[in-house]
């Protein structure tokens, strides 16, 4: 990877980081476990590596934005996540912030 490619990759990851959190929170308004969440995001064009998504779920839960529970589904124990009460409030705020930023960036670009 050349220096400019490397620089682009770093900037791209930096740009995606905040968006991923918002996308994950949006998808978890409906309860899902890790793999189905990953598929749902991919179907909407947002591919996320396993090593990024699964730890992110843990962090968001530790921050109180998500709630989780182990439950059996198709003879397998799976950890299901959904937005917590606090998560819903913060998600609404983040959506407004995202829309404002998006409008500004669009007008700037």
């Amino acid at each position, binding site marked *: 990877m050349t220096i400019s490619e490397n620089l682009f990759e770093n900037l791209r990851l930096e740009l995606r980081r905040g968006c991923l959190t918002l996308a994950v929170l949006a998808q978890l308004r409906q309860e899902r*476990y890790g*793999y189905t969440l990953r598929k749902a995001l991919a179907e909407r064009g947002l591919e996320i590596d*396993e*090593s990024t998504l*699964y*730890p992110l779920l*843990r962090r968001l839960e530790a921050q109180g934005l998500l709630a989780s529970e182990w439950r059996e589904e198709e003879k*397998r124990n*799976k950890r299901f996540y959904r937005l917590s009460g606090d998560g819903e409030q913060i998600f609404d705020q983040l959506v407004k912030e995202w829309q404002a930023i998006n409008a500004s960036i669009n007008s700037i670009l």
Partner: protein
Amino acid sequence: MELLDRYLQAVKKHLPWKRQDDIIAELRANLEAQLDEKEAALGRPLTNDEAMAWLKQLGSPIQMAAPYLTQQYLIGPAIFPTYRYVLQLACVWTVVINLIVSAVKIAAEDITSPAAWFEALQHVPFTLLLTAAWVTLIFVVIEYAVTHSKTKWILPAAPSAGWSPSELPPLEERGVAGQKPRSYSKAVAEVIFGFLFLAWWLLVPQHPYLLVGPGAPYLLALPYTFAPVYMQFFWWVVALNAVQLAWNGVDLLSGSWQRSHPVKHLATKVFGLIPLVLLLAAPDHALMILKHPALDQARYGGTLAQINKGLYQAAWVVFAIVALQLVWEIVKMSIDFYRKRMAAMG
């Protein structure tokens, strides 16, 4: 699938032990669901090569485990600026104290060879490393205490909500006549070399070898010696350098080494002329005298007069150079002052 079990086992070894079982159970559920879907799409189990390609795509066990680890610092960003500042100070003072101790030791033991200096100084790098290690260790302990304590600590480097813009230090003026501000390394070098020069100068009377090298024994054998005015000259140089060294040291410690001190700059030049004036004002321009005038006047008197004439002229040349430098500095400062004043008046 055995390969998946081996993969998860390898991931587990890199996870925090308190949460590793929970994380591995979740990862297993997610990866097995993914595997089931792949196999359902193919209508058969994955071959060994396909399984290896899939696991390779997931990333190495370390890559998979790393994002689960919380970020850990030996010295975190909150106290790092303080750590760096203390480390710099400790290193500077370690070098200074080491040099003082070495100089005193060498003077006390009456050692004159350059090898003794080298021996005395060769342990400085090790002492520096030791100092850095101790400072680092202390800050690691502070970081640990701060991050593991339930008490909220107010760190000196932490951004404070109570700061006021009016408390900001005044703008640092540019140096004399628009020169760039001194760098930190230059300020440190000035202190170190100022000290080295002073130590060397103080040792010269007892050890002329340091000044004239191998010619010292010949100097002692000559019928001439330095006139008493040289002692006044010697102590003036000591005093000037000691004051300058102390001033530079205070600047460094107070963090104001960048600021220009026009008064200090001029004072150094003006007082630097005094030792030269002392030499020029010596009675009969006698900078060297005979050790035994009654015995040697007839034989060496003429040569002594020639030597004194040469030394006196040399002192004049040096005085003229330093005086011209001083005049030049005053002119530059005056022009700079005039420009600033005109700029202020708009």
